[in-house]
């Protein structure tokens, strides 16, 4: 998306304050308020408005969309200059958008979406789940995706050799696991707990009365004997940390205890190697997905006798030592001995489609046909089956029989570009630049990857075949069905985590001295809170304004304690309402630890990052990136002892910095009552916090509540931003000026439904860029 920015330095000497508008005529308004700076002589920001005719806006939409955006956001004329009143702004924006939107309607421009886009890692994992009923961890199979325009659905046009190699290996591994063919001898997997996980409280999913440990969803490839071995976490001297008395360790399979051990502190020889060497069990496990748990039954422990409250984070022997042992890794090896392939969901899915009798060739056709249709997400031709069947015959001939043949054919399907790539081939003979409506199956694919980040399911494919996706009612029916499906949580967990930068929390490592309570438990709690919150907004189909002003959120004990919310006990997240005590409210994104931590540095908050975050992700008005020669705040010659607000004020004395920071910093200041890990504070370094802030349109306010009210004064800006982010995610490309009319149309329609999420999504699905394509 082209960035819109004019340099908001003072250029007129007229008195500030709003000047009543004499006329709603766009040309007159521009002449009155804009041309003083944007005249042929000055051309502030390189923008020329003198003599420009809004009625001819359609001749240069790229330029006029920039003008619209600046006016729509009330960013021009700059605060402090003479500005039209609200009615005036309204009128000029309406006139301009009227011209632009009519032109877009007459000649739809769906923008350029890539013809070939590969599945990213998340889509691959979901596709395997839906295709083969097989849960895999794609992060162990494929490299991470580079984000583009903030999303991992964008930079997916190219294919590096390493990536292709990984796709091939992944396909073979997945095929093996799905069919359950025996490997060469027993295999194994090792699961390690992150070193900064505190394991002294209950872990959700493990039995009550236990503490710490790990719960591993694991697919046992075949029936057989497996060994599960546990190793405990060590300190830097290789001693098992926190082991000062005997502790019990339990291994569980699908919640049933299958082994129990006792670990004891080493004897006088201090040999820590032997301490946990006996934590292994060998047992018969039927093939299929199971939950392997390792945990410690809680034992009554003496209260910690310390002068201050003990830290909640305990994982480092120096700063905050563990008081009880913790799991470092769990290794599952097997199967030992010759077992059967077993009865697994993936085998049922694969072979359930095959007729019980009939030749192997006939059965193979049935098995592979079912897979191919969903993998290629379209009706099959005879030719589609030809090569997979060759792989089947070759694999079978190598001696492994029918199932080995199916495994090979499945591996081949999973590396086919028709599975790995989302191909939107233009109709034959279409001229470059021509605009066409996507065919039914392309629409089905777009819907599935947008809402589920996965393949279309059978119902969606059938709807496409029936032609249901050709009319709005049919599309709406499918969208409603898909949003009600559990897979739609993808929007809350995948889309939103990227949109809101919640994924950044994963890399957040706040300074251990300043924030000694930070550990991975808190990091994961942050992510869970935001995912559950967004899930609830979508499920309950609330208005996007609830993103800001919801008076509830989701907490477990750890997070509640972090926030200072009483009476939340246990590791289970539950909805907590603040309707009766608004003064201590959590809920609303601006009060989420995830967002507040992702927009902070390791040692302090960053009003700049927070301001930028609000402008870019909620208001849709990101300032441009800093010029390359600007020093960072810490590097600049500004005393580090000054309060942050004063340091930033000094920084803004530099005009080069001020043009953008005048806009960003005041937004972030409003959130200064939250420290760098999202805790409420009223003082920083013994000085009271000053949380007064302002929006780019000049609105002034106090604190987070003030910022929230200010943002909601014009909910259409928030709605438009959500639509823009959804569009980037759904289309896999950055937005262009030509997309602006579509965004406006979606927002206008959704306004009638109070900006409910479903209205935005239905509108997006009906939009030109989603349904149409331009021939490249």
């Amino acid at each position: 998306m082209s960035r819109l920015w004019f340099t908001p330095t003072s250029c007129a000497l007229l008195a500030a304050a709003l000047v009543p508008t004499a006329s709603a005529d766009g040309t007159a308004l521009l002449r009155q308020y804009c041309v003083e700076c944007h005249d042929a002589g000055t051309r502030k920001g390189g923008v020329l408005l003198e003599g420009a005719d809004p009625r001819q806006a359609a001749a240069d939409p790229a330029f006029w969309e920039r003008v619209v955006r600046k006016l729509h956001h009330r960013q021009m004329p700059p605060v402090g200059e003479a500005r039209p009143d609200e009615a005036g702004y309204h009128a000029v924006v309406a006139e301009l958008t009227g011209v632009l939107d009519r032109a877009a309607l007459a000649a739809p421009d769906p923008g350029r979406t890539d013809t070939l886009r590969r599945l990213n890692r998340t889509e691959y994992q979901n596709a395997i789940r839906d295709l083969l009923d097989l849960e895999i961890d794609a992060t162990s199979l494929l490299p991470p995706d580079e984000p583009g325009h903030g999303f991992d659905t964008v930079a997916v046009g190219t294919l590096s050799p390493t990536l292709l190699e990984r796709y091939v290996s992944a396909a073979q591994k997945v095929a093996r696991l799905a069919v359950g063919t025996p490997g060469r001898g027993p295999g194994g997997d090792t699961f390690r707990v992150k070193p900064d996980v505190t394991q002294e409280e209950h872990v959700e999913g493990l039995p009550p009365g236990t503490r710490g440990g790990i719960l591993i969803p694991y697919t046992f490839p075949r029936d057989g004997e497996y060994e599960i071995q546990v190793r405990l976490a060590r300190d830097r001297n290789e001693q098992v940390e926190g082991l000062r008395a005997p502790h019990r360790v339990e291994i569980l399979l699908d919640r049933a205890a299958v082994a129990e051990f006792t670990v004891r502190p080493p004897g006088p020889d201090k040999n820590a190697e032997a301490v946990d060497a006996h934590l292994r069990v060998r047992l018969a496990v039927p093939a299929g997905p199971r939950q392997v748990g390792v945990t410690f039954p809680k034992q009554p422990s003496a209260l910690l006798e310390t002068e201050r409250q003990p830290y909640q984070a305990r994982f480092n022997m120096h700063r905050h030592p563990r008081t009880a042992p913790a799991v470092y890794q769990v290794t599952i090896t097997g199967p030992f001995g010759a077992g059967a392939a077993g009865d697994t969901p993936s085998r049922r899915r694969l072979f359930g489609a095959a007729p019980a009798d009939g030749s192997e060739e006939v059965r193979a056709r049935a098995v592979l046909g079912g897979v191919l249709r969903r993998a290629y997400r379209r009706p099959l031709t005879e030719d589609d089956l030809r090569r997979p069947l060759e792989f089947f015959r070759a694999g079978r001939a190598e001696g492994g029989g029918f199932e080995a043949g199916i495994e090979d054919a499945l591996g081949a399907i999973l590396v086919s570009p028709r599975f790995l790539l989302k191909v939107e081939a233009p109709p034959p003979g279409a001229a470059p630049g021509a605009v066409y409506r996507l065919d039914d199956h392309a629409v089905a694919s777009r819907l599935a990857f947008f809402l589920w980040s996965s393949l279309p399911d059978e119902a969606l494919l059938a709807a496409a075949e029936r032609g249901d996706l050709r009319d709005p009612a049919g599309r709406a029916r499918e969208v409603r069905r898909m949003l009600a499906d559990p897979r739609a949580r993808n929007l809350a967990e995948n889309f939103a985590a990227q949109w809101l930068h919640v994924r950044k929390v994963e890399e957040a490592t706040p300074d251990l001295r300043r924030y000694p309570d930070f550990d991975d438990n808190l990091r994961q709690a942050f992510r869970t809170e935001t995912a559950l919150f967004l899930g609830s907004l979508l499920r309950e189909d609330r208005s996007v304004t609830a993103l800001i002003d919801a008076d509830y959120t989701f907490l477990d004990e750890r997070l509640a304690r972090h926030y200072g919310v009483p009476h939340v006990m246990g590791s289970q997240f539950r909805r907590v309402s603040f309707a009766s005590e608004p003064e201590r409210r959590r809920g609303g994104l601006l009060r989420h630890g995830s967002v507040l931590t992702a927009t902070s540095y390791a040692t302090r908050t960053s009003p700049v990052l927070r301001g930028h975050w609000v402008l870019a992700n909620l208001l849709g008005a990101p300032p441009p990136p800093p010029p390359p020669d600007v020093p960072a705040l810490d590097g600049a010659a500004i005393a580090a002892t000054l309060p942050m607000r004063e340091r930033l004020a000094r920084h803004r004395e530099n005009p080069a910095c001020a043009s953008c920071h005048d806009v960003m910093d005041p937004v972030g200041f409003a959130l200064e009552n939250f420290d760098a890990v999202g805790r409420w504070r009223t003082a920083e370094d013994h000085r009271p916090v000053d949380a007064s802030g302002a929006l780019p349109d000049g609105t002034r306010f106090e604190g987070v509540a003030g910022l929230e009210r200010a943002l909601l004064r014009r909910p259409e800006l928030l709605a438009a931003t959500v639509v823009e982010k959804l569009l980037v995610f759904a289309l896999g490309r950055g937005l262009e000026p030509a997309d602006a009319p579509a965004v406006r149309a979606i927002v206008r329609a959704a306004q009638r439904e109070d900006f409910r999420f479903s209205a935005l999504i239905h509108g997006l699905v009906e939009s030109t860029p989603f349904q149409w394509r331009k021939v490249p």
Partner: protein
Amino acid sequence: MIITRKALPRRTFLRGVGATLALPLLDAMVPAATAATKTAAAPVRRLGYVFMPMGCDLSRWTPPGADGRLGELSPILSSLAPVRDKVTVLSNLELRNAYPGSHATSNAAFLSCAKAKHTESSDYYLGTTADQLAARDIGRETPLPSLELAMDMLQTTGQCDNGYACVYQNNLSWSSPTTPLPAEAHPRLVFERLFGEGGTLAERRAALRKRASLLDWVAEDVASLKRQLGASDRARVDGYLDTIREVERRIQRAETATADQPLPDLDRPLGVPAAYAEHARLMFDLQVLAMQGDLTRVITFQLARETSNRTYPEIGVPDPHHPLSHHGNDPDKIARMAKINAFHVSLFAYFLERLKATPEGGGSLLDHSLLLYGSGIGNPNVHDHTNLPVIVAGGAAGGMKGGRHLRYDQPVPLANLHLTLMQKAGVNIDSFADSNGRITDLFTPLNV
């Protein structure tokens, strides 16, 4: 990338011939620029680094004799006798940047020769280590640019030593000043990284053929896709085809390596051997295989971590290593620590013997590799980073003269040695960390 070579489609042969036949490598099949043609020029093509924690008893380390020959071996080095003519002991190397002395900086500086930023938080900063500079250069042609191994299965975070973040003590290799590379100690995980499932030679060849035929199909399918697309999208498809060809080339190279250097049957190790020596030898065996199969040319291996409290009852030392190393000049403690030092060296000697016994290009693997063994601490009692115990082994193909003891009057930066070894292995580099010269003595004949 664009491959402008006219290689015969090898897989057409592959399909025609019997499944277990080794394929003769026809000249026309070798692409224009492969590892084989490029690397034949550099006689020494691998670098290995073995780290010994917490220094040693120098009185039992330093070889006797002053004529520069490695004659009689000191007690700690006695196990090197079978490879005496392949090793050079260097005395009076130092790590200035490891001061103020600590365990964290000993480990951190050993391969970086850089000063570790004194922090216990996430703003740690060190330097790119020698092995990683080498990996960027000579590691490009192998499936794994480098391999990082260790013996300790633990992961710590936060502060570990004197206000230094644990990353300094955990990681020998850093691919940038802010990117430590965790090392793997689990033999199975190392094995799988190198060889996947492993298997017999025939099984591994069959697996390669299977991958090749999958790629055939991808290429075919991509090509058919291309026909449906317009001109502007065809360029992208051509990019995919280049990628496919590159992966095919890698498979061909793997097949070539299988034919040239037939590795034995590879059976995946499942567990971690209980005995330290057995575990260490397994880790060394994996390194030999990785070198032999040309899967990587740069390997680092931490025999134990700094401040390790490992006990060695199997050699009669039931005391934890770290307290022993702060022996307070108690002769009994020193003697026991020296036993550990000798034990570590004997494991390295095992490695050298295995390399020496593996033939390669008219010599042995050892002749074509340069290995550095040493510690970041000299006298551990006082966290001293001078007079480091250091051995260089191998490199005969590059003119390295073994059977020597190079003793310097003035302290020489360890960085000089790193620089020299990197250059010898063909790494394009002029200086490294605090280097102020090279150690050319390694390659000049002895003048006595």
